[in-house]
């Protein structure tokens, strides 16, 4: 790997740390290459978050050898006094299936620092792994009482509620997310779909419109708008249902004629010609 390549790889890894994307297969593969080609030692202090990132990805794909190598490297700089490093050792135990020992590690972190968010979240993850969804939801609710602006936690709670078909509670989580990030079109989209599932078509329609306002020609929202509008055509309370219905179909046909394949466009045209 040339020097130019390794800089690009390091940048790519950093972008995943920023967006928090779960691209474990790619990160583990890139990380393994960087290590094999000895490209990490020259990075100085920048290397430690990278080792942590590769270790977590390695846990995710089950490459314990790679993970152990990263942890060994980190151990030359940190020890269990660093709660962040300690959490990583807990995650290693989780990856090895030693859930009881992992629990003990997180408990001890929280004994030292009861506000430690990393350990709190791992505890919640352990509940999930042990199929204790009720306890997970309770722990998350308690966590969110303090950290009400942690959108990742609201998303996790929403996901748990949805898995139990508790749509009203899931909707509440979405409402909190919308308060935190009112410009995030994905949260509006999620709320629209939950409202649709609850058969609240007027509110779903409004939310789909909001998505399209924030993100032009968003295909998922266009399909949703088309569906909602069709369900409200007979309703006297919703003005413009017919217009929105026609608009959604028109925009979809436009998007597909520009970017869709022949086969999918054919199906979509048939689909849109049905009410």
């Amino acid at each position, binding site marked *: 790997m040339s020097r130019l390549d390794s800089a690009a790889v390091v940048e790519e890894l950093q972008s995943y740390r920023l967006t928090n994307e*779960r691209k474990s297969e790619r990160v583990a593969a890139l990380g393994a290459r960087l290590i094999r080609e000895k490209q990490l030692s020259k990075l100085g202090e920048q290397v430690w978050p990278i080792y942590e990132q590769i270790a977590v990805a390695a846990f*995710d794909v089950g490459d314990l050898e790679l993970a152990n190598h990263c942890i060994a490297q980190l151990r030359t700089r940190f020890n269990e006094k660093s709660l962040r490093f300690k959490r990583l050792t807990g995650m290693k135990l989780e990856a090895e299936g030693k859930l009881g020992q992992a629990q003990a590690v997180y408990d001890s972190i929280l004994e030292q620092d009861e506000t430690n968010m990393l350990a709190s979240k791992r505890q919640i993850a352990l509940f999930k792994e042990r199929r204790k969804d009720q306890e997970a939801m309770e722990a998350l609710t308690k966590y969110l009482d303090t950290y009400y602006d942690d959108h990742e936690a609201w998303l996790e709670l929403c996901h748990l509620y*949805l898995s139990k078909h508790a749509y009203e509670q899931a909707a509440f989580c979405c409402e909190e997310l919308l308060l935190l990030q009112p410009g995030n079109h994905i949260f509006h989209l999620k709320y629209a779909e939950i409202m*649709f599932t609850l058969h609240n078509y007027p509110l779903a329609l409004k939310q789909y419109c909001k998505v399209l306002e924030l993100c032009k020609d968003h295909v998922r929202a266009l399909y949703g708008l088309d*569906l909602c509008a069709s369900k409200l055509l007979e309703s006297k309370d919703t003005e413009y249902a017919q217009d929105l219905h026609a608009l959604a179909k028109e925009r979809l046909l436009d998007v597909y004629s520009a970017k869709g394949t022949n086969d*999918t466009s054919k*199906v979509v045209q048939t689909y849109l010609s049905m009410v």
Partner: protein
Amino acid sequence: MSIQYKVSPRAYALPILHAAKYSSSTVCGVLLGKVDAQEVEVVSAIPFFHHWTALTPMLETALQQAEIYATLNDLKIVGWYQANEHDDDVTVHDNAIKVTDLIRQRIPQAVIFIVDDRKTDSSDKKESSILPYIFSENQWRANKLAFTKESNFGFTYEETVPKVRGLFSTSAYNKVVDFDDHLEDVSLDWFTSPELKI
């Protein structure tokens, strides 16, 4: 008289590969095939979702479009597949039952494939990673003997299980396209996942 189910490599592979691509999520989709009085041939599958699987609007859209695609290709929707979030959960969840109730209205012999990923790693080269469920006497029942010699479930190609296992070495699962993927980029063909050669 028991109905025979014949499963093609593609119909076996797609649910497993879809589950592998999104290994930490629930994934699901429909099964396509042909039906006559004695036999159901499960020919292929169309992957639907890897997130928001409890929500309904895109499910309505996907089902209608899958139906249109099936008709255009002389096939029918003959079942549903799902890989649950936890890999040792091989039960049929409510969402799967709801969708298959609709499918059963037209095809009473409809089948549900549940992916059992614990088997994908197994040293037994012939062990199937798909556990089929059939509706009989008012309940969905797992056919645990499926794909063994005595069973009414068989492969159209004898080496299907090792063949599909072999696909993992090239990370072929990354070539699966589902409806969720398609909605983010409509140039991706979710009906046929054309890059995926089985």
